[in-house]
């Protein structure tokens, strides 16, 4: 009961925070130019809360620019007309939400698995190699995230130019959404971070007494690594998972633009009502929150199965 209450409180506070965040634009922007107003902000917060309880009434703005041809004697050039259409949010938005969420969760899984598997392989290598690998990851971790994205895009295009073989489509076209390349670009930086974490953690773990004891009993190195070391580092590693999620999400914000994907963030940042924005943010953040909490719960259960 108490656990239920504390989880409910956390989720409620998270929702409140997102509502407050998504109505902040109204704190600054007035009808014309910058005008700070707290009353307008409070008003918007209430509007957003009201809107969240009636999801069927929420709408989505779409901005289009139509090609128009004025009559020929008047003007020979073409004109673009700006138009805003308003549609109900709900059946419409699920596709983009699912696309974005699947990208995030899939790259999360890829990064985690890649880091752990690579960590295991590295553990079995001789220690001189291990030191070199830690140095290399130190350097790789210091590079900015977008550097990798640019390099990946450039490499794919370069290979295509040289050989005519398109490894994966680097930009989304209207027909096929790109999935493979964004996942690689997204999961690269978190994977490096987790991999390095895993190496550093196992370095401190291996000096502990129980490992020395196991070694003195004559248990083989491989068995020690798989049986003791990894299980104990996995728990420490899971503390860093919320940070990894944040890293992934903040990269997705940019990668969605750079790969020209039709995800939620493009919609979120276009001209929408605050309640729509709050709804979209909640629809992305709550599943991520749920995933992290579920993983934490599983790790705790695995580590200590007799706890309540």
């Amino acid at each position: 009961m108490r656990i239920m209450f504390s989880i409910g409180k956390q989720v409620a506070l998270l929702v409140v925070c997102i509502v407050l965040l998504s109505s902040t634009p109204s704190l600054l922007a007035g009808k014309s130019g910058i005008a700070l107003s707290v009353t307008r902000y409070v008003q918007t917060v209430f509007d957003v809360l009201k809107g969240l309880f009636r999801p069927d009434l929420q709408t989505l703005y779409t901005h289009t620019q139509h090609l128009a041809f004025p009559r020929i004697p008047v003007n020979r050039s073409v004109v673009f007309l700006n138009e805003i259409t308003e549609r109900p949010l709900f059946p419409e938005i699920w596709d983009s939400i699912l696309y974005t969420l699947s990208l995030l969760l899939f790259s999360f899984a890829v990064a985690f698995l890649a880091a752990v598997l690579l960590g295991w392989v590295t553990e079995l290598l001789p220690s001189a190699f291990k030191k070199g690998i830690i140095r290399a990851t130190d350097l790789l971790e210091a590079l900015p995230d977008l550097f990798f994205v640019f390099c990946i895009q450039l490499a794919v295009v370069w290979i295509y130019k040289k050989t005519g073989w398109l490894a994966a489509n680097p930009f989304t076209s209207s027909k096929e959404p790109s999935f493979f390349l964004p996942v690689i670009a997204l999961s690269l930086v978190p994977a490096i971070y987790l991999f390095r974490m895993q190496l550093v953690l196992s370095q401190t773990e291996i000096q502990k007494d129980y490992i020395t004891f196991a070694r003195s009993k004559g248990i083989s190195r491989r068995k020690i690594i798989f049986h003791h070391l990894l299980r104990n580092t996995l728990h420490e590693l899971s503390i860093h998972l919320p940070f990894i999620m944040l890293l992934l999400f903040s990269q997705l914000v940019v990668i969605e633009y750079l790969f020209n994907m039709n995800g939620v963030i493009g919609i979120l940042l276009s001209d929408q009502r605050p309640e729509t924005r709050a709804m979209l943010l909640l629809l992305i953040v709550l599943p991520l929150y749920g995933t992290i909490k579920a993983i934490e719960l599983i790790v705790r259960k695995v580590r200590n199965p007799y706890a309540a």
Partner: protein
Amino acid sequence: MLRKIHAYHIGVILLGCLLLISISLPLITTEPPVQPFLYKDNGELLSIPPLHPSQDHLLGTDRNGKDLLYALIEGAKYTIIFAGVVTLSRMIISLVAGLLFKRLFMNSWFGGLLQGFQYVPQSLIALLILSPLLFYELRTESVLSYNETLLIQLIVLVATGVFPLGKIIAETAQSLSRYEYVTCAKHMGASSIQIIMRHIFPHLLPRLFVICGRQFAQVLTLMLHLAIYHLFIGGIMISSGQEHDQFNNYNTLSNEWTGLISMYHRELMLDPFVIMFPVTAYTLLILSVNVMTKSLEKTVSKRLFYY
């Protein structure tokens, strides 16, 4: 006594040199004139921009004929100074807030409220808050002057970082105040201000430098993320002869590095060298900041270990 030279000393000197060159360059020379076309002596067309790196233009030019080396050096100061100012204001505000309202930051209700910052990235928050300004600038003339734009961007970038940073500092201070001498001082009747100044702050200070270095790298990353969405530091100039937004060209007003990267992004498929030079410069900047922070961190943890 001769002190050992650490990586962060070298880093600070390098950054200082870059800043100095960047500030003094416009005073010494003027920008190389923009050459739309290059002709041979007899008037034959030699090449059109973007010009590849050569003797005249060490790093080549962009599609408009702007010299890249000059743009990079001139823009360095805006990048470094803006990121530095944001970092310092974040540090000062959240240091004061974290130490004064330590209880509040450790409160589970307030902490739960700050959880949003753990799940929503700062770049998204900043973009959401600044997006109304973005639309004004896209559809019409910019309603804000250069200084106003800069100020608003500064305030928003500082505000998005203050809450999570304040929590980090409050947590660090909390862990420092668990030592026995702090409890002793409390029992002796020392006021909370005295405890903060005497017992907590001296131990907090070396850690603050490490946090500051991390923040600097984080702010630089944040600036690039904003620039990708055409939110350039110091404003934007949109040039396009056509009415469809698809054909807009977004130019930085200040040659600031992240702005340059975003501006040249479409060259990635055409003439990659145009974008690769700003990206390399930016990468080296972040790399040096991160290496500095890491070496600082190592010395700090070593010193704490010895005492």
